[in-house]
């Protein structure tokens, strides 16, 4: 088990280093001079040169890279060119909002799709199964921004029950959470259903029945523990993705999250903030993945011992 964790951690470090390096390269490839952007069109050549020196842009690329990696390790991504505060401060303001939204969306999705998938799997091809399957297929085909806009029109404009934008009260979280959760519920329900149907045909389910266990015990825990393994992975990955900011949903609802900050920063060429956002998103994604891998090892002893 210890070896398993160590190997996963080592891999995570490499992935992060890769992400940080790619961000560095991509930003340097973009044909724009950050010093010029920061100082503005009216700056004199002397001012520009001074700014370049201050930002380290007059150094050779390799020195810039080492400096940048060192700064990244200490969480220093430089100052936002537009808001004149450290980029990390901007992220610190919005990341908790995004994390809360991601968590709520995942909880809602799990809470709805587990019972629905279970119901469908245990009533294969009967009415409730067909209803659940049809509903989830339909939901899965709806684009996220459309769901968001429709929810906003109905519940904010028409009924006036919920706020449509910003994050001023807990109620502001409801519509974005539902918007993010709905497509995920559709996928997850179908996955719980098909996973459970597959597991119910396994030999160990027959064994459990031959032990005279009630059908309830056959399902909890014999079937469910096995059916959950792939589902947990999917939930973890989705949470990681949502942590990176739901760009469209956050934009539709003017939600102060990291996705909206990233889009905004790209629009105004705020490279320090863009770099910081990308690295933070990568770190979040890698950490969540690491956690999912460890959880996988915990849930499936075969993974723990073999890899």
């Amino acid at each position, binding site marked *: 088990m210890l070896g398993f964790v160590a190997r996963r951690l080592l891999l995570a470090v490499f992935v992060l280093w890769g992400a940080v390096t790619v961000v560095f390269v991509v930003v340097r490839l973009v044909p724009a001079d950050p010093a010029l952007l920061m100082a503005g069109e009216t700056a004199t050549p002397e001012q520009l040169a001074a700014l370049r020196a201050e930002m380290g842009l007059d150094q050779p690329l390799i020195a810039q890279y080492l400096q940048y990696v060192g700064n990244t390790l200490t969480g220093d991504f430089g100052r936002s060119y537009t808001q004149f505060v450290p980029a990390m401060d901007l992220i610190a303001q919005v990341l908790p909002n995004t994390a809360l939204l991601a968590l709520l969306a995942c909880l809602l999705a799990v809470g709805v799709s587990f019972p629905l998938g279970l119901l469908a799997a245990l009533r294969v091809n009967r009415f409730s199964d067909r209803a659940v399957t049809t509903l989830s297929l339909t939901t899965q085909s709806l684009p996220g921004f459309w769901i968001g806009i429709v929810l906003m029109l109905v519940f904010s404009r028409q009924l006036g029950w919920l706020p449509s934008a910003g994050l001023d009260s807990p109620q502001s979280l409801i519509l974005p959470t539902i918007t993010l959760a709905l497509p995920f519920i559709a996928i997850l329900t179908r996955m719980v259903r098909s996973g459970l149907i597959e597991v119910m045909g*396994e*030999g*160990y389910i*027959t*064994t*459990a*029945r*031959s*032990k*005279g*266990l*009630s059908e309830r*015990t056959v399902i909890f*825990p*014999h079937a469910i*523990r*096995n059916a959950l*393994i792939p589902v947990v992975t999917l939930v973890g990955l989705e949470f990681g993705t949502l942590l990176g900011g739901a760009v469209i949903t956050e934009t539709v609802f003017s939600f102060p999250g990291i996705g909206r900050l990233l889009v905004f920063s790209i629009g105004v060429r705020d490279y320090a903030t863009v770099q910081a956002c990308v690295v933070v998103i990568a770190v979040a994604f890698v950490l969540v993945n690491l956690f999912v891998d460890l959880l996988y090892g915990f*849930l*499936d*002893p*075969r993974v723990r*011992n*073999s890899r």
Partner: protein
Amino acid sequence: MTEPATARVDSLEGDPPLLRVEGLEVEFSTSAGVLRALDGVSFEVRAGETLAILGESGSGKSVTAQAVMALLPQPAGSIVGGRIWYGGRDIAAEPVKQVRKLCATEIAMIFQDPLSSLNPVFRVGDQVAEPFRRRRGMDKRQALGKALELLKRVGIPNAETRIRDYPHQFSGGQRQRIMIAMAIALKPRLLIADEPTTALDVTVQAQIMDLLADLQAETGMGLILISHDLGVVADVAQRAAIMYAGRVVETGSIREIYDHPAHPYPKGLLESIPSEGARGQRLTPISGSPPNLLAVPSGCPFHPRCEFAIDVCRTDVPMLRRPEGWEAGHEAACHRSEEVL
């Protein structure tokens, strides 16, 4: 083992059988139509006796076991006729839930592939302890203690530490031993072993058969040994029922069947076994292949593959009967046993 067991069968002849199956009929609804998997299967097993059910794949051996244990795949498979007598009750007529109460406590079962039959995410100790906890209401410590005793009894080395291991950490033979430990946990009176050694190495096969025979001698339980391998069961079973296309075509003591088969199908099976005496000779296979259960041949289902088939075989279904000149208790479903065998 064979000697005393035979003696016991004789002495028990007057007792009612543990399990008696009468004219059992099972159908499966498939996308291609209704398939008759069992078409009037009858046999009985007594305490302390080993009955071998033999046949090719698709002959209905496993379906018979599933029907007895109420394990037929739902909703496709169902019992459409016949009776399964156990303890004075016809369990074929009882709801699945009711029959399951007999599972493990009265009738237990082990399966062909011990790896897929053990739950991969639970420790073997917990799986063996489960019958004690869920069926007998023991607490965890007590149940694990019982499980340890059982694992030792079936010959798992270092059972004290291995009780905490998972199924994938054991060899195939050890996994089958664990399955056996689980099956005999609640001291069932009848054990059904469905191809228990088919997935195992030849050397391990013999060890598992010995273990089953030992346990049977200890507990006096009845044993149904389902196999396609006539050699594996020869030393362990006293009686055999040979199945073909969902029917029993020959039944009797295993010695009698091996020495004087009364049906061309078992005769063909015996001739296709390689033997030391026939070294260098060509084996005689049975020509053709088992029938499609969606379109079973008319009359005797074996007639298209039978070298002795005549007109009556194509029209009339032969009933199980004792052919003249054969021992009592030896029956075959063939029109021409006396003439040709």
